[in-house]
């Protein structure tokens, strides 16, 4: 290291509050001074090497607990003794209270409920009413849902029935119409036969009548022709 400014510049370089001007000045110098640049680089390497420290684990020790307990004799012990001394009494008292107040613990969907004696009738009543109202609402909802489902099914079924009925009517109508045509045809045929017979009979009668008329005319003519003869 031969640059006389190296020590001063690098001491400043590692300052916490390095001003912009000083920093610029140092950097400008570093651009032109190989000695300072090399020195800075090696110092930075040293720093990096130091920063590679990884914390070791602390070996087991008592963390001053022994001393602490010595310095606070009976403090923890007193608390512990106090606790164990009063625990049976507290438990007995709690049991007695539970018996006197007729304590009951019930479990519901919303959690546990602690009730005391009959004083909670109002609470029970209200609770029951609330539950009943909830049940009623639930039932009503279910019924409405069922009704909706039923109506939907009915609609569906009704549509099917109507379709089937229309189909049946249509088939029936087709069949009936054919039968009707057959009947009409036979009827008209029958009527035609009857009419023909009637016409034939009538014609025969007419012919007979004509013949009679002719005969009558002939008799009349004969009569007319021969009356004088007869007188």
């Amino acid at each position, binding site marked *: 290291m031969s640059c006389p400014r190296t020590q001063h510049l690098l*001491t400043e370089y*590692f300052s916490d509050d390095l001003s912009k001007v000083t920093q610029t000045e140092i950097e400008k110098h570093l651009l032109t001074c190989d000695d300072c640049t090399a020195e800075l680089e090696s*110092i930075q390497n*040293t720093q990096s090497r130091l920063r590679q420290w990884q914390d*070791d*684990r*602390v*070996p087991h*020790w008592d963390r001053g607990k022994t001393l*602490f307990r010595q310095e606070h004799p009976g403090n923890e012990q007193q608390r512990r003794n106090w606790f164990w001394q009063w625990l049976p009494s507290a438990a007995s008292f709690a049991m007695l209270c539970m018996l006197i107040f007729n304590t009951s613990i019930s479990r519901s969907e919303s959690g546990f409920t602690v009730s005391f004696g009959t004083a909670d009738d109002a609470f029970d009543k209200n609770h029951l009413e609330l539950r009943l109202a909830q049940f009623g609402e639930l039932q009503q909802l279910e019924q409405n849902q069922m009704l909706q489902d039923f109506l939907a099914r009915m609609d569906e079924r009704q549509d099917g029935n109507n379709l089937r009925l229309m189909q049946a009517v249509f088939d029936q109508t087709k069949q009936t119409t054919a039968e009707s045509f057959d009947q009409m045809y036979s009827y008209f045929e029958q009527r035609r036969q009857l009419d023909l017979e009637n016409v034939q009979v009538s014609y025969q009668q007419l012919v007979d009548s004509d013949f009679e008329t002719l005969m009558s005319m002939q008799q009349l003519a004969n009569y007319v022709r021969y009356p004088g003869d007869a007188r």
Partner: protein
Amino acid sequence: MSFIDDDEALIATALNGSSYAWEKLVKRYEGRIYNYGLRLTGNATDAMDLMQEVFLGVYRNLHRFRGDAKFSSWIFRIAHNKAIDMNRRRALIQGRTFSIEDDENGEYLVPEQTTDNEPDTQLSKGQQNEEIQCMLQKLPMEQRLIVELKIYQSQTFEEISKMQEISENTAKTRFYAALKKLKVVMEESHVLS
């Protein structure tokens, strides 16, 4: 009692005699203090001694902690003082300090290593940490403290100067001098290896 979490609450509870709070407080800082000790003393035994002294000091002075500064700053100030005291005591009693001085041949002494009969500490040390410890031991105590505070505790030169009761410029100069020396040590170790 697991809801107690911040330092102030733990301190208050510990002062009321709760060993649980005290243990929690110690557990929170013992790692940092122990590693601080490792870097300053260079060996696990001295680091443990220092850590125990620090927590003893913390315990004795806990009622004096007012909460003006952060508890971490306070505990490291105690650690700093204890480290200097310990170094001074060792120098007086055994003629040995944490720092490694040149021996008669002008070579650096190897820092005190943990022995094989201390498997727990031996195993917990990485090669990397050992090398850094060796490097740091080659610095005088005042330079090592500056490096510790600046590099590992991330303190500003202003904070360091207040703690060490020196000027900021002296702190800066010492820090740069320490880095220069460490650079030489690193270069020498590379040449030797």
